[in-house]
């Protein structure tokens, strides 16, 4: 089936708000090339469970596509229209399973050497969309905070090497009450700028005491869900004919209830589910979980405030043993985890800088319980080192 044959009733399986959204724009969807449309539907089918910035971005994108003349639309999407698709892809149920279609499309593009052409088309489209529908700036400058090194007694190698050129490195930070100061600052921002899913606290271990206004995801709190997921993965592996692609598809189809989630916030439960089912390594290493969750929170919720605290991950063990979740014998690797988190802090900053308002955003990374930190902000001198005594609250104040 091709997009031009789309009919409103074919979206009957979509959640209610998603169904309304796509049927309102059915005429626009009918004009889109098949190499493009399922990627859009993959977002639309999740509309009911998306965070506010995602919903707004999708609405604006659809409105923009709807507003384009036939000539302009052709010009915008010609790169996608030139992608040759197989009959199998055309016959795929891309309306009801757009994510699976995109997976198969990706494989097909690699195999047919059309990936570069698709990338070109995607980059060109995204660039034009950015110009025509510029993202809205945040209501207040963003603040990202990353806390690394929990459980490390001493560490002599240099930290924050990738970030130093972008900000000020502090070597004499008073660590006393540092974490409390950070959590209080995040809570204060949540009170000053209240908005749904605008202020996040992600912890790679156990959550510290925090303000209820924060959207919180922690590795320790998800332990029952991780155990449930690993059990399901093992069961799937044992099924005849199971391969990696089929397994990936099965995992993507899991719903929050399958992993024991039952909060009143289905959107957040779905986010937590995806962190475990779609992330690579998030089921095993807490540092990977914290980094990937931060990436996805930034990309999807575009928070005004994000505090990410890394915790020690398991020492690398045999994969089978790790997947058996024999946590009673788990050993930790604090120093290795610090290396992971140091890189994770860099990625947190990079991902924050991809959001609107990057020029006004600030970032702080601190070696928990120790005297090293680094600040990046609009007025922070770049590539500098300070040996002056300072505490964590003062670091935050320097970014205000």
């Amino acid at each position, binding site marked *: 089936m091709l997009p031009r044959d789309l009919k409103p009733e074919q979206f009957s399986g979509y959640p209610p708000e998603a169904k309304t959204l796509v049927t309102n724009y059915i005429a626009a969807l009918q004009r889109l090339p098949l190499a493009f449309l399922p990627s859009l539907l993959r977002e639309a089918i999740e509309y009911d469970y998306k965070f506010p910035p995602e919903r707004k971005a999708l609405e604006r994108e659809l409105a923009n596509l709807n507003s384009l003349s036939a000539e302009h639309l052709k010009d915008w999407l010609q790169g996608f229209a030139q992608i040759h698709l197989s009959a199998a892809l055309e016959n795929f149920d891309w309306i009801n399973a757009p994510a699976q279609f995109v997976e198969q499309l990706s494989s097909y593009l*690699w195999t047919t050497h059309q990936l570069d052409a698709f990338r070109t088309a995607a980059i060109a489209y995204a660039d034009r969309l950015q110009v025509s529908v510029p993202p809205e700036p945040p209501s207040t400058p963003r603040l990202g905070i990353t806390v690394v090194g929990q459980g490390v007694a001493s560490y002599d190698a240099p930290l924050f090497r990738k970030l130093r050129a972008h900000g000020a490195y502090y070597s004499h930070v008073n660590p006393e009450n540092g974490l409390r100061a950070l959590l209080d600052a995040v809570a204060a921002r949540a009170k000053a700028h209240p908005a749904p899913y605008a202020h996040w606290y992600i912890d790679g271990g156990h959550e510290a005491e925090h303000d209820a206004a924060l959207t919180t995801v922690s590795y320790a709190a998800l332990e029952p869900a991780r155990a449930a997921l690993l059990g399901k993965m093992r069961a799937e592996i044992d099924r005849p004919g199971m391969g*990696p692609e089929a397994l990936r598809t099965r995992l993507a189809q899991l719903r929050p209830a399958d992993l024991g989630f039952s909060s009143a916030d289905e959107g957040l439960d779905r986010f937590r589910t995806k962190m475990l089912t779609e992330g690579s390594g998030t089921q095993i290493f807490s540092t990977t979980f914290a980094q990937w969750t931060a990436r996805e929170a930034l990309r999807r919720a575009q928070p005004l405030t994000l505090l990410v605290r890394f915790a020690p991950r398991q020492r690398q063990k045999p994969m089978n043993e790790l997947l058996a979740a024999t946590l009673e014998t788990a050993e930790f690797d604090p120093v290795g985890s610090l290396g992971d988190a140091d890189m994770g802090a860099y990625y947190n900053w990079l991902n924050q800088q991809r959001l609107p308002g990057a020029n006004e955003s600030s970032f702080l990374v601190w070696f928990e319980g120790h005297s090293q930190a680094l600040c990046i902000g609009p007025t922070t001198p770049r590539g500098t080192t300070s040996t002056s005594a300072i505490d964590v609250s003062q670091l935050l104040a320097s970014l205000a």
Partner: protein
Amino acid sequence: MTSHFSAIHQDLSRQLAWTRREFLRTGAAMALGSTLLHNPAALAGVPGKKRKVVVITFGGGARDQETFAPEGQENIPHLMRELIPQSTFFTQVVNRGILGHYVATASLATGVYETINNFASLPPEHPTVFEYFRKDLKRPSTDAWVVAPSNGFNRIGESNNRSYGPGLGASVILPKHLLTAAMSGRTTDYEHLLRDNYETPLYAPDLGGNEFQLRQLEMMLKLSVDDFKSHALTLSSPDELSVYIARRLMRQLAPSLLWITMHDIDIAHAGAYSLYIEGIRRTDRLCAEMWKAIQSEPEYAGNTTLFILPDFGRDSDDDSGGNGFQHHRTGDALSRTTWMMALGPGIREGVVYDRPMQSTDLVPTLGSVLGFSPSLAQGKPIAELL
């Protein structure tokens, strides 16, 4: 639009090559070889005994910032200080194929960008270097071997091409598979070596093809199962086990064409940066160990060319579609552009070439070095090595 992207891609590839060249000039005192197209020393320096080739894939994928960039050179001390000064180094080896480890390694081995399913137990569609080598030169099966870390590589030794195929390929040893068999179901002490494909850690395809059988350990490698198991307990990674087996092969059978696929680095898929760095450092050390082994084995010393190259790179930090070092899914320039070094008699030492070449050029180059004709390969022989 495609041409526009290609231009961008080529610019980025050139930039990567240029920076590698500059890093090498400053870090390893290499000379530029852009004007030295032909190598008068090639072949002339090789003594009369049978010429041999060892290929090591520096897998699975490492980026410049963790290797050849100034901040990464601390992770590859053996390459920087010991191997590169003795090598001819190519800074811009582009892989235009599918960036999955099995299919990319198959492409390296056939000289054609293969399109087989990366996760299936399938042979390459085009003849492998091993088939060309054995058929053209009438070499026995003991003269071409593959040592691979992952069960998914069990079909890499020979294609399903009608003119070549079964019976003409390389014998494939999967050390982890051997270890599994040797354990006879007891997994307690050996599981740390049994990790398979890091991208899909739970999946292991059914084995088929010409993989080496456990009973042959003793017969061909003169290694008892008990000794094999005991030695495995002293090793920290699958690649260490692969190098151990490769050295036994060199000692016992001295194959003329030996291909070793490293894979430890691919732990990066689990997202733990420190483990990825550990993998790079281990692979760096193992490459140096293999070079030392080549120089110390009488059958190899003085007549062996060693090629070291990654199958591909990993995603850039700058591509928002990826997640940096963790994967190789974006197809960006950093993930497609790698390097290659060649060492051995007749190879010019300490020279850098930064012209673009493709990873499919390896097989035709091996053909020229060893004297066979890879007629279906798409690449071109590397003139600077001939």
